[in-house]
């Protein structure tokens, strides 16, 4: 037994090896560096490799004293979570609907493939372009405003269309809905159609079928899509910066400004905090469904 096991174990390690190596070199090692650097000291122009918790302490400076008022950093994280939640909710609803339509309303395989390919068309242009394209549309003198004014719906341009949370959420939803569609669609097409027929035969209404059959079976897709969207939005600073007119704080933005001021250890500390929070959210999501088992 033992003799026969060893070679197969060796082969298994060999097969997993390349991926492990990539994971180690491009993920674990850099992450370890970030964590180490987050405990370094710094000045205007260099990092000083001595242990200090300055990066963390200064991040939360004055937070205790300000209670019960929230300090800027906590407000920033709350704002990030709020944006993240909104984007997640909207992409989930849209993504689920699109996937549902593709999986259950389109009968032919060819059309399913063709239509899901159409969903990828926006990805042929870069994220930045798709984001910036909203600006002339939403601006004070943009298409939407001038259209509404001319149509007599409003008498002066809406200010909240651009450089606002609305614009941020809109752009993020536009950019990332597809990340929900694909995994959910993927789960849905693998649902045995006979289950739905059985539900129908047993007298379930459409809504009951949806909540009792389809949603539970599409859960892995929903969780995977959610992980995609949440991790991207939590770390985003470009979209939030551009669409928010650089006025809306986000966790990623703090890291960016720290980097710009050459305060690398402080940026690393903030990155570690952000990673921790994102990790907690994902851990909670993974509690809901064992992704590995369902795949």
């Amino acid at each position, binding site marked *: 037994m033992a003799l026969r096991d060893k070679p197969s174990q060796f082969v298994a390690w060999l097969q997993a090896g390349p991926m492990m190596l990539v994971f180690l070199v491009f993920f674990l090692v850099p992450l370890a560096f970030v964590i180490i650097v987050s405990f370094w000291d710094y*000045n*205007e*122009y*260099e990092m000083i490799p001595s242990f200090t918790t300055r990066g963390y302490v*200064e991040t939360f*400076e004055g937070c205790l004293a300000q209670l019960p008022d929230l300090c*800027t*950093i906590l*407000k*920033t994280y709350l704002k990030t979570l709020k944006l993240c939640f909104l984007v997640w909710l909207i992409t989930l609803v849209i993504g689920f609907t699109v996937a549902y339509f593709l999986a259950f309303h389109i009968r032919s395989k060819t059309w399913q493939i063709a239509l899901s390919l159409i969903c990828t068309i926006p990805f042929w242009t870069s994220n930045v372009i798709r984001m910036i394209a909203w*600006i*002339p549309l939403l*601006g*004070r*003198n*943009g298409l939407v405003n001038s259209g509404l004014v001319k149509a007599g719906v409003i008498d002066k341009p809406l*200010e909240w269309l*651009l*450089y606002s949370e609305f614009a941020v959420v809109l752009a993020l939803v536009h950019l990332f809905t597809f990340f929900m569609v694909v995994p959910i669609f993927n789960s849905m097409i693998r649902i045995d159609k006979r289950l739905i027929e059985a539900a129908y035969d047993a007298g379930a209404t459409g809504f009951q079928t949806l909540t009792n059959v389809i949603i539970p079976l599409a859960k892995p897709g929903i969780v995977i899509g959610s992980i995609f969207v949440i991790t991207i939005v939590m770390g985003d600073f470009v979209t939030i910066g551009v669409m928010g*007119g*650089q*006025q809306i*704080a986000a966790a990623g*933005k*703090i890291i960016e*400004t*720290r*980097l*710009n*001021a*050459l*305060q690398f250890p402080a940026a690393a500390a903030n990155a570690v905090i952000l990673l921790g929070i994102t990790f907690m959210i994902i851990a909670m999501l993974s509690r809901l469904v064992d992704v590995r088992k369902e795949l």
Partner: protein
Amino acid sequence: MTEDTTKSGLSRRTLLKGAAAGAGLAAGSGAITGFPYVMSQEAKVLRYLGTAVNAGDEISKKCLADTGIKIEYITVTTDDVTKRVVTQPNSFDVLDTEYFSLKKLVPSGNILALDAKKIKEFNNITPVFTKGQLPSGKKIGDQGTAPWKVLYLEGKDSKTFAKSPTEFVTLIPTVYNADTLGIRPDLIKRPISSWAELLNPEFKGKASILNIPSIGIMDAAMVVEATGQYKYADKGNMTKAEIDLTMKILTEAKKSGQFRAFWKDFNESVNLMASGETVIQSMWSPAVTKVRSMGIPCVFQPLKEGYRSWASGFCVSKGVSGKKLEWAYEFVNWFLSGWAGAYLNRQGYYSAVLSTAKANMEPYEWAYWMEGKAAEKDIKAPDGSLLEKAGAIRDGGSYDDRMGSVACWNAVMDENDYMVRKWNEFIAA
């Protein structure tokens, strides 16, 4: 004999290949100089790190034609310039940066002091840089990181600034300007004369300030002084309490919705103004020119409290030596020799060597841009597009009027770290 030559030739070649591959272009071209016939072919390339402001296509074309030096622009934002110098000093040869950055760059040890003796026009550089005064002798404001405070180093490898002139120069000045607010006169419809207007609730949701902390806070300080709320000892070197006060005033304005957006680069500021999202904002002179050349009225408004000035120049990466260093000197000398200076003057900037720029401009151009006189003929931008019709007068008047009214210079404060944290809180508030 024959065999020997071939052999040694071959091995030298292999060695060269190895050197070129290993040490990159710089070392490679340096090694090749042993062969005269190869040298005539070698490309004179300088990697030029700077912001988009000075990275003119025309300048690089003219430079290539005049000197054979090919300029490869690496265009990044002001913050990224500094970041790159500190973290990747080998990724560029010539650096175009502002004097206020020197307080970070010089201690990092990544830039090379230039030898004033090798700069042909060094003694003709305007006294604004060397003495802090106008050619007429009038003293100008020295709050903040004024260029003459950080122009010289004590020695070749020194990391401390010299109090009096030495031959080791940190940054050869090229271009500078007196900055003020940009406004849209067609949308404001009344005269603007004070920095205080930036935070005037009348322009609620239509103002903007730039999101580069070390410059933005100076604009804020000009506003605070203009509103009479506080008088700083040195706007460019605030105490923690002064930083708190300034940021508090800005934060209150932000919370009440004063700002439409913050901008970080040239094009963002142009877009904000041109699209009418903002009507009053911190702006750079060529950005105003750009908006105006799009056919949209925009004024670089002179204000009674004076200007916030900045200056930038060239220095060289520590990693540059040998031939490459000579090209760098050649490039700097070419830049100061007049054509580029005239080009910059026509954009609304000022050139460091006035005499050579003057020689390269038409008398009517010089009169318009530098002497504050009404334009005798139509004023054209460097690209040939019409800027002003005959009879127009430059915003803010002559060189002496503008540079003479400088109140402070862009700065890096002693409390910079604290200031950046507070600025972060302001942006996040």
